[in-house]
């Protein structure tokens, strides 16, 4: 479904992404891992069209989407939830999701019909499935951090994507929230057949949810494969876990 081939991107001479490769199959849950600063977020920005890669190709359903505007990429079916809560602070929770749903339904330009009567069902169903329904009237800026992150994901779902990109979906969440969130992600994948690409620090989550894992370091793809394959790869252990080799062994034993 999505294919990144040898993408490169530099900022002021610093190569944030350097020959990254990624394959995401339809319906799969794919994780990207790597130390802080490895270029995961930049890679996602390239896919979402926020930056244009210097070289390389990004193919979505066989079509090169390099250089398309973000809104165009979204309309092709890629939605993205951001690492930091990237919501509409002055709008209500309902409106936050509604904006996205309306955009997906191509109704953003409708002038003379009250928005509050449009796309209500779709919006509510997304709010319900993310557990935000009882907070629908709240102004988004007043939500807790965890709720903002969930709202973030709900906005992404509003565009009815085929591929959902999640940037550290559980960062800053409590273990309970994390569990709920990852259950939601799995549910979305199974019930809606959504393809999911995410990056995450929490190895437990990565290894329990992802069907395929791509490891990045210094902007480069080290390996992409099934969890077990990745876990066994020495290069990954060396690179990703740095000097903490002994500890990581402990973990995998446990």
């Amino acid at each position, binding site marked *: 479904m999505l294919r990144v081939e040898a993408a490169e991107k530099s900022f*002021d*001479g*610093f190569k944030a992404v350097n020959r990254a490769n990624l394959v995401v199959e339809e319906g799969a849950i794919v994780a990207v891992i790597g*130390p*802080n*600063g490895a270029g995961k977020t930049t890679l996602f920005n390239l896919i979402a069209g926020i930056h244009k890669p210097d070289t390389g190709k990004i193919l979505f359903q066989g079509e090169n989407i390099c250089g398309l505007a973000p809104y165009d990429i979204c309309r092709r079916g890629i939605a993205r939830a951001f690492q930091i809560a990237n919501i509409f602070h002055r709008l209500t929770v309902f409106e936050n999701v509604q904006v996205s749903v309306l955009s997906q339904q191509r109704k953003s330009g409708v002038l003379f019909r009250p928005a509050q009567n449009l796309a209500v069902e779709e919006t509510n169903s997304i709010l319900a499935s993310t557990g935000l329904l009882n907070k629908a009237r709240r102004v988004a*800026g*007043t*939500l*807790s*951090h*965890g709720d*903002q992150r969930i709202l973030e994901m709900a906005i992404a779902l509003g565009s009815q994507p085929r591929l959902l990109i999640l940037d*550290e979906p559980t*960062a*800053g*969440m*409590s*273990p309970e929230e994390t569990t709920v969130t990852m259950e939601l992600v799995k549910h979305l994948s199974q019930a809606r057949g959504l393809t999911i690409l995410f990056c995450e*620090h*929490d*190895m*437990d989550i990565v290894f329990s949810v992802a069907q395929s894992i791509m490891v990045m370091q210094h902007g480069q793809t080290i390996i992409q494969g099934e969890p077990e394959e990745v876990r066994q790869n020495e290069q990954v252990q060396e690179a990703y*876990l*740095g*000097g*903490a080799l*002994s*500890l*990581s062994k*402990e*973990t995998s034993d*446990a």
Partner: protein
Amino acid sequence: MLEVDGIHTYYGLSHILFGVSLRVEKGQIVCLLGRNGAGKTTTMKSIIGLVRPKQGTIRFKGDEVVGKAPYTLARKGIGYVPDERKIFADLTVGENLEIAERKARNGVGWDRARVYEVFPVLKTIESRRGGYLSGGEQRMLAIGRALMGNPEFLILDEPMEGLAPLMVRLIEEQILRLRETGLTVLMTEQNVASALRLSDHSYVIDDGHIRFQGTVEELKANDEVRRKYLLV
């Protein structure tokens, strides 16, 4: 030296810290561990005064410091190295150090020459602009810059983040050397291994709550905490 007692901090309306408490004794290296977004940086910013906790107290050398401007805290002897690369991009390395220089109260203080002794690399790039440094160079410069204010107490927010292993080793060595000069250090880290090698005492923060505190040995022994709140 530093006592943080039950602070609650908000960004706008979102509640980040929920009653965080921690203590740092003179001469210690204390480490605050936690994942991305757990509240480490907010704790550091609350201490240095960049955000003001709504509740709770922070005492430094016995004085209440909540609500004080960051510059007064710096003058009281707190040095701060932020996690983002907050090097002044328009200024050269030398200028970055120069503006931070302050006369030491007891005579022998830090000056540029002494910082260059600790980080010889910086001397070779003295006239390069901050914006053109690599990540490791920026990190060294940030630490050097904090030292120029002659702190008694140094706050390091993720000093190893994004650094190559070799660089991590170098920074670790320097931190240990600094401790020998009598400096007290509070650092945050995601890289558990590195943090544990350095510190005397550790706290684990998650979701704005302190979930664990104890010596390094205790943390090493506590598998559950490590698995639950850290990445390992």
